[in-house]
């Protein structure tokens, strides 16, 4: 044992020698090659995104960890293009992998859809992703809220925006402004009476002067518009 290569005193020396060999034989030459060739494009690394079904098995049940790792790669992918060409064609596939591994990763739906919409100009992809998020997380307001925002701001589809704001309104933790959007969208979709009822209810139950003032202003505006049927629009 004393002459053996695996003597405890020699193992540390062997380990250090192996580390040095690896450093000078592989790490440094590869680093230099990388510098000569230029930075490796991120797409070369996206092969890591196997089909979700395969990743589910490969993750040995640690699916949320696999989803986190896939999410970190997605962030890197977005970041690498955000400051340059702003082209992110792989984003849908990447976010799809993340949410297939963890369907309850709400931020992956909302942030993924946000970048898909505003950087990738893929509104339909963003909506598909958010609808999937809303279906998988019926108790979370975020996907419904973001769907409403996308329909409202990007597609000007006030009916669908109203539907999704109403869905978000019923869910705990939703932003305080959602009821005001609902009232405005009722007015924008031609339901002035419903909008008036909602604003009056808001005025009567308001706990802050600020909300009461907004409600009174909107009520006055709607009542004035009753005499001008061509007017209207959500803000």
């Amino acid at each position, binding site marked *: 044992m004393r002459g053996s290569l695996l003597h405890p005193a020699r193992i540390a020396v062997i380990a250090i020698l192996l580390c040095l060999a690896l450093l000078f034989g592989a790490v440094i030459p590869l680093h230099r090659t990388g510098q000569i060739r230029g930075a490796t494009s991120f797409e070369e690394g996206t092969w890591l995104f196997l089909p979700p079904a395969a990743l589910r098995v490969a993750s040995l*049940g640690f699916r*949320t*960890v696999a989803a*986190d790792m896939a999410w970190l790669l997605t962030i890197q992918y977005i970041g690498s293009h955000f400051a340059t060409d702003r082209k992110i064609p792989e984003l849908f596939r990447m976010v799809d992998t993340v949410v297939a591994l*963890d369907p*309850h990763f709400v931020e992956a739906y909302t942030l993924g859809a946000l970048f898909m919409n505003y950087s990738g100009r893929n509104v339909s992809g963003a909506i598909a992703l958010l609808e999937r998020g809303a279906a998988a997380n019926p108790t979370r307001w975020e996907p419904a809220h973001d769907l409403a925002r996308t329909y409202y701001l990007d597609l000007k589809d006030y009916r669908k925006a109203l539907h999704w704001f109403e869905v978000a309104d019923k869910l705990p933790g939703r932003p305080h402004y959602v009821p005001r959007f609902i009232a405005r969208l009722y007015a924008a979709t031609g339901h002035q009476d419903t909008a008036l009822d909602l604003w009056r209810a808001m005025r009567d139950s308001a706990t802050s002067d600020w909300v009461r003032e907004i409600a009174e202003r909107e009520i006055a505006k709607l009542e004035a518009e009753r005499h001008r049927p061509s007017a209207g629009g959500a803000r």
Partner: protein
Amino acid sequence: MRIAAIALNTFREAVRDRILYSILAFALLLIGASAVLASLSIGQEGRIVKDLGLASISLFGTFIAIFLGIGLVFKEIERRTIYAIIAKPIHRFQFLLGKYIGLVLTLLVTVGAMVLLVVVLAWAIDGHWTPGLLAAAALDFVALMIVTAAALLFSTFSTPTLSAIFALGTFLIGRLSGDLKIFADQFAGLGLRLIANGIYLVLPDLSRFQMGAQIVNGLPFDSAQIAGTLLYGLAYILMLLSLAIGIFQRRDFK
């Protein structure tokens, strides 16, 4: 009392094992590194620390259970100390139970250290205490107890290398047997479905003990499901220990 003495002795022996400290050091390093990795995410720091922390506890806890568990009986035979022990007025089942409890105690201490680090990191990042983390770690500990019982079972009749392969196989199958149930339900033929379901029932389903998804996504816990999982784990441990005792009782040490 005899079981307690053997358990304490096994614990003392295990905490002197260098492999325990190597694995624990790697686990603590990975858990600590998760905080650095988390900073790369957009607002998901707490999620990543909890997720990686729980996975590290499960993975490194399994390594500890396997690498210490496989040598429990074999070492006694190799050193011939087993002859001195079985010559004493002590039942073989007491010896085996003592060994098991001692290893579980070792796991409790090491897993406790890992849990503490995860809880502190999560607290520092989130700014609030996540009690669910302890529940998730406790449930995961029951899964580790199953793997320990499996390692002990294999160590009663095979060499440490084979025991390690069998125990690691049990862990891998256990992690994936939940998928087997899903596949079984998708089979069109009744025969295949019954076979797949039968295999699923025999194999341990370690995926039942994972609560990471609920913790990181803030989903509610189902108390009845947790109680059912605990009962399942207890039943499986009793079955594995009974098998190990049965084999060990019949073993001839002459």
